[in-house]
């Protein structure tokens, strides 16, 4: 082959060797097994591998991209009139959008909604896709497990940042809220810590980007600690009533409160004293 120092003839000869088939199968199995061993048990290793854009992941990612993304984002992720370019959005954006089921987008609405992932979008496929997009022009990378570990954050500090930066769209408790032109800020309850981090650094849909100079990685971890702490909290006062505040409280006061008391009034007055004839 040209420039490799190995003649075409000798390669051809090796290919025809009786043990070549065995060797190829063994190599493939070894790569698969080794790759799996590297990727599966410890997420951070896989994340690191994606961050560095390992070559074969990139190749796999490209074929996934062509199959599932290119019809809107263009064959080389250059963007079309239907969808923006993905050059420079980074692995974090891909991981956020695909792992939350927002991409591939179902039908064109005001914004992409969280939905169950398609069957092909396994964790591995997403990491390959992310590696491919990362290889196109860099961008924010997927955070490490340490960076998003709620146990290492300070929920009280995170709460203050959360109230200052997030609740004007996502509500006090992350229950979500309305935005203009049919868009909405989604509830934060189903989002994983990694997705929350990625949303902050990539600014999906109508959300602004909170980069590391605005909110440091430690502060982001504090916010994740607050969000995950509050959402798994058992409401001490009974049913949380969707945790959206006075609207549902008013409904309950009228429907349950006034409803029950009206029934009680009807019941009490239904029993009349018999008038003596």
């Amino acid at each position, binding site marked *: 082959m040209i420039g490799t120092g190995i003649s075409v003839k000798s390669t051809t000869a090796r290919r025809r060797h009786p043990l070549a088939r065995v060797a190829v199968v063994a190599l493939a199995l070894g790569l698969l097994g080794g790759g799996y061993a590297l990727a599966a048990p410890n997420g951070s290793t896989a994340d690191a591998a994606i961050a560095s854009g390992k070559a074969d992941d990139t190749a796999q990612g490209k074929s996934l991209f062509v199959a599932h993304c290119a019809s809107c984002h263009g064959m080389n992720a250059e963007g079309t009139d239907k969808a923006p370019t993905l050059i420079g959005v980074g692995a974090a954006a891909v991981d956020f959008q695909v792992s939350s089921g927002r991409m591939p987008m179902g039908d064109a609405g005001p914004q992409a909604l969280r939905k169950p992932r398609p069957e092909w979008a396994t964790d591995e496929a997403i990491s390959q896709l992310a590696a491919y997009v990362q290889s196109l022009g860099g961008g924010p990378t997927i955070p490490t497990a340490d960076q998003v570990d709620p146990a290492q954050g300070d929920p009280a500090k995170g709460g203050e940042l959360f109230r200052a930066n997030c*609740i004007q769209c996502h509500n006090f408790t992350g229950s*979500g809220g309305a935005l203009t032109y049919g868009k909405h800020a989604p509830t934060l309850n189903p989002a994983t810590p990694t997705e929350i981090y990625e949303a902050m650094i990539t600014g999906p849909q109508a959300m602004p980007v909170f980069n590391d100079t605005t909110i440091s990685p430690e502060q982001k971890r504090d916010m994740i600690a607050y969000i995950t702490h509050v959402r798994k909290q058992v409401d001490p006062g009974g049913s949380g009533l969707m945790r959206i505040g006075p609207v549902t409280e008013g409904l309950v006061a009228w429907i349950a409160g006034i409803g029950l008391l009206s029934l009680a009034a009807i019941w009490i007055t239904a029993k009349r004293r018999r008038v003596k004839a």
Partner: protein
Amino acid sequence: MNAPPKAIAGTSTFLDERLGAGSFLKRNLRKIFPDHWSFLLGEIALYSFIILLLTGTFLTFWFKPGMGHTTYLGSYAPLYGVQMSEAYASTLHITFDVRGGLLIRQMHHWAALLFVAGMMVHMLRVFFTGAYRKPRELNWLIGVLLLSLALVEGLTGYSLPDDLLSGAGLRITQGVALSIPIVGTYISFFLFGGEYPGHDVISRFYSLHILLIPGILLALISAHMILMWVQKHTQMPGKGRTESNVVGAPFYPAFMAKAGAFFLFTFGVIALLGTFAQINPVWLYGPYTPADISAGSQPDFYMGFLEGSLRLMPAWEFNLFGYTFAMSVLIPALVPLGIVMTGLALYPFLEQWVTGDRREHHVCDRPRNNPHRTAIGMAGITFYGVLWLLGANDEISSTFHISLYTTTILGRIAIFVGPAIAYFVAYRICIGLQRKDAEVLSHGVESGVIKRMPNGQYIEVHTPPAEDIAAHIRGKKEIPIIEGGVDGEEVPPKGLRSGVGRLRAKMSKAYGTDHVPFHEEEVEEHAAVGAGEHKQLH
């Protein structure tokens, strides 16, 4: 019969000789109260008020109405070490560190919602049955005053915890104060003791919330009850019920038992809600800082209509003589409140003016029998309801996936069109129900018995309505119409010659005309025929 034991007889004689309690009780314990479920609705408010006083007193034992800065070191972890005001910290303390504190706080808040809601349903009952008519206009005015004060009491109450949500409400209150032309800034500085939010507003609201307004509420409620007691309760029309009697159960023992049971029901429902439904979770809202605001910031339901009017209003403002007139805040803050409260207060007098009716009324109207009043009431409910609904337009938008601007635009149309449609529909329903009543009186009730006549014809046997139902229906009274001026044949009376007078005569005719008069003769005839009466099937 045995004589009462000496201990009881002695004590009661002692009291009787000094207080005259015996004759007072003899007169009043046998007071008759009519029986109708809707007459108990006002008691929801009364009993909620008692529960509010009790739970509120409990809360004052720990609540610190201060805006001094403190660091929270209590047991709620997600706020540990956070800077906040004393008021908010003590609310968290009541919630998480006082035994039963959260339950009592929640019961206080639910009781507040039921207090206002109870007043509203009671007021609607009084309105639609015309129970506000002479001689009860003053009691109606006291009721309107009570409702207005309850709104202020609620606003000052939910502002006290100094959490982020209540701060949003306080900020709007300040915005409204500022929007008042010329004196706005002075009012704001006076209310907050300087720049917003300052250090005084919580302790000032506290004095108003626990001392002044409850005191006035208590006095007005007492006046309301005494007037009701002295003027006697109205009753629904029915058999044996006239303008000069009250048919029902005596206060002691029957009505007292019912009222006592209803207090326990109210207490039970409030305890149930306080236990199983979380209300005003201030720990989730966080401490107030003027820089933060959350999506889904709504006031308690009774302030919702003001929130809605603010959200509906286009951004209109202009400058005049160096002053800014912020109509975008001033109009939504004052106009709907003015329409609703002034309209309520004036309605009895406007109705008297239109009908010229100076008689006393002790028997209520069925809502259908005064179709214009019912229609006006429904239009008012629709006006209020649209504003109330639009106060939650962001929750509606995000829950039902309707564009936020669409809700605003629809609301702006509905606020004008909705009441008109409601008026028309309610009026037609009233007339329809009156026709149904007339038919029941003149043709009787379908018995479900089908008869075959000898000639092969099928007929359904109609029976006369039950005596009490017929009496209930016959309770319909004509609405007086002021005389003259309408047909133009004669010279109108003195007061009706001007433009206003002519309008008054016209309105009186529209308001009072009975479109479905009962044909009593026909009823007599049918009654004479009796149970065997038949009517041809259509």
